[in-house]
């Protein structure tokens, strides 16, 4: 008997799809995963070979990446400096200021240039949500789960340190890190607020743009955190989805008509991504999915049908990144518009 409620009320999600098959149990045992996770991967990808490719990425590590902080330094100057310190960098094609660190990645947190706030150490897919949100200096932006500040500082950079970002986080210790990073990166246009973002929906429409990089199970982080393969029990997955749904509802309520919202997670679980968006689209008739312009160049379209559950067609406009296909952490991004 399950001791949790499914968070989705507008469409039927039975849990039979999570019952592990023989193949799932065999693979789970071989790679040390929870069987229900592997069963879901088999149903998501439709072939065992691809599932095995994904499972094999566990703990393998990823190429590190940095984002140059143009509020403080010209990227060419930073590249010259880092090269002189033995780092080998390569531009990430879809982020002007993003670079893969091909050699010397272990030094990144110790260099003086890091202390000076000339770069932020950040996964490549994490650089995409602020670019998709595309804020201007005239925007009032809400960053709902802001700490440690990678995306907040990126938003500030895109806004030329003008306009306003309200950066919210619930955790006091993470708030300290956020403040230090804001300071280190020379950001001036933020107000930091410690509170639970899901309450913000109670205070009316105020923001022109919202970024919700939601807390998640981190199922996309398998290559850099092997503990994820047995960390998330089925009930944890749905509890997380419930939290994400609450946050997203709050975001929609706080967004001004005509405003844009980007939802992202570092999870590849449909329950935390397409299911959440599907529920929101069913609940809010004034919300629609908008095309993405950056991640669509390399990502994979969101599911419109998965685990035998039919979802809305617009979800094909959301995008996913997979560790085994893209050699990056797994990620999901979706852009929503609140109609005027």
């Amino acid at each position: 008997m399950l001791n949790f409620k499914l968070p989705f009320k507008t469409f039927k999600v039975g849990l039979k799809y999570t019952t592990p098959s023989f193949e799932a149990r065999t693979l789970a045992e071989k790679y040390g995963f929870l069987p229900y996770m592997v069963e879901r991967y088999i149903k998501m990808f439709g072939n065992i070979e691809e599932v095995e490719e994904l499972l094999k990425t566990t703990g393998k590590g990823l190429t590190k990446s940095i984002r140059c902080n143009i509020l403080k330094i010209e990227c060419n100057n930073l590249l010259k400096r880092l090269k002189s310190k033995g780092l080998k960098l390569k531009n990430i094609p879809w982020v002007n200021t993003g670079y893969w660190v091909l050699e010397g990645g272990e030094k990144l947190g110790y260099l003086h240039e890091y202390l000076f706030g000339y770069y932020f150490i950040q996964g490549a897919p994490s650089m995409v949500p602020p670019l998709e949100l595309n804020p201007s200096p005239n925007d009032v932006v809400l960053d709902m789960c802001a700490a440690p500040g990678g995306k907040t500082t990126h938003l500030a950079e895109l806004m030329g340190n003008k306009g306003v970002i309200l950066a919210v986080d619930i955790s006091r210790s993470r708030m300290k890190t956020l403040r230090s990073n804001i300071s280190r990166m020379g950001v001036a246009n933020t107000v930091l607020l410690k509170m639970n973002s899901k309450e913000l929906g109670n205070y009316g429409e105020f923001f022109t743009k919202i970024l919700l990089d939601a807390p998640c199970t981190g199922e996309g982080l398998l290559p850099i955190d092997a503990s994820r393969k047995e960390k998330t029990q089925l009930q944890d997955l749905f509890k997380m989805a419930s939290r994400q749904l609450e946050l997203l509802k709050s975001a929609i309520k706080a967004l001004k008509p005509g405003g844009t919202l980007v939802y992202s997670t570092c999870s590849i679980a449909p329950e935390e991504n397409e299911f959440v968006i599907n529920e929101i689209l069913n609940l809010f008739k004034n919300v629609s999915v908008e095309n993405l312009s950056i991640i669509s160049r390399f990502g994979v379209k969101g599911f419109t049908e998965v685990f035998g559950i039919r979802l809305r067609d617009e979800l094909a406009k959301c995008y996913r990144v997979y560790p085994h296909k893209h050699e990056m952490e797994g990620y999901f991004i979706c852009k929503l518009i609140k109609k005027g």
Partner: protein
Amino acid sequence: MDKHPIFVKASEPILKDIIRTLSQMFGEVIVESFFRDKVVYITRNVKRNEVFLVTRTLDHVVVDYLKGRIRREPYSLGIFLGQIIDGEYRVSIDIAEKLFLKARRNAIMINEHAASLFLYGRDVMLKSIIKVYPPLFKITVVINELEDVLGLCKLTVKPKDLLVESRSKNKIVCKNIIDKGWYLRKGH
């Protein structure tokens, strides 16, 4: 233990003190231009009062949304200007860096070896200084050979004595107040 800080607009005397100190360090024209159309907030209800510089747009969000609608206090905001301790304004690296980059004054450039030590909290010896950006104030910006701001130090000698060859080269001439290594060692 401190209670939650309350953010209020800084009083005129505090504002004047901040502007006076920063003007002495970086020049009146640059400081006044930087502070124009901005608001200074100070934290109350705590032992150490922190001060912040915010734009009018940011102020509008604080007044209308945070304090007005949701009745919350910020955690921090805008540019951290420093602290008021025992009635005295203590400058932050954040504002010192922004103003130095505009003013190019009140700084000492130190060699690479000394820069690495300074970022670990060490003081500056006379022999480490390779250039002075006059006029110097008692609290001066410390930069490396590439003009990256490393932190702030307090001069222990008169500025003109920094150029006197006869003095002991190992003499500490500037005491580390705060350096950017602090972000790693402690953080806000």
